[in-house]
């Protein structure tokens, strides 16, 4: 799994009725855009390192070149 700064990481719920959780990728710490990612969770702004598993996916966004 690869990500860029600004992408959205989504972790699916693990139980019936449990919502997805999402976070914004702040830093990519692995090689070639790979994990771990430093993220900020949308719900309350907490930051953590994340190592995505089979329950997660990344939504890529077009990043403007300055």
């Amino acid at each position, binding site marked *: 799994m690869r990500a860029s700064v600004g992408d959205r990481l989504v972790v699916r719920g693990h139980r019936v009725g449990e919502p997805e959780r999402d976070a914004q990728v702040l830093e990519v710490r692995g090689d070639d855009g790979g*994990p771990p990612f430093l993220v900020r969770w949308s719900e309350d702004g907490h930051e953590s390192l994340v190592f995505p*598993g089979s*329950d997660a996916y990344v939504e890529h966004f077009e990043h403007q070149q300055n």
Partner: protein
Amino acid sequence: MQTITRLHRTGVGVAPDRTIGDVAKLMSSSGIGTVAVLDGDTLVGIVTDRDLVRRGMARGLGHDARVDGVMSSPVYTVAADADIHDAVEAFGTHAVRRLAVVDGDRFVGIISLDDLLVDLSEDLRRLTSPMALEIDAPQRDSSVPVLR
């Protein structure tokens, strides 16, 4: 060989000096109840929501106590490319419900006993479905004479 790759869940990592209050909020916002404690790149412990309650709240620790005071260490691990049966063996040996998944020395995620059981029960269902069909709708060979 069937590896655990498709079964391992997203892992969240925090530094040993994060507070248990912080980690509890992180568990809530991420929906992940097992957090890896990392000293740099080194995995030094695992803390679950249950640990926060039993080793933290129940012993009167405040929200500002460090998470490394309630974590489990050493951490039982399984390799990211391990066969499912190796994971079954590891769960049986260590009597835990979560194992850290590692690639070499590097933490890459969590595998839970629940996920493994669900996956293995699906295999069992596939294996037993022909037998269940036979019981529900027995196939009889019409050419075999029936003795009266």
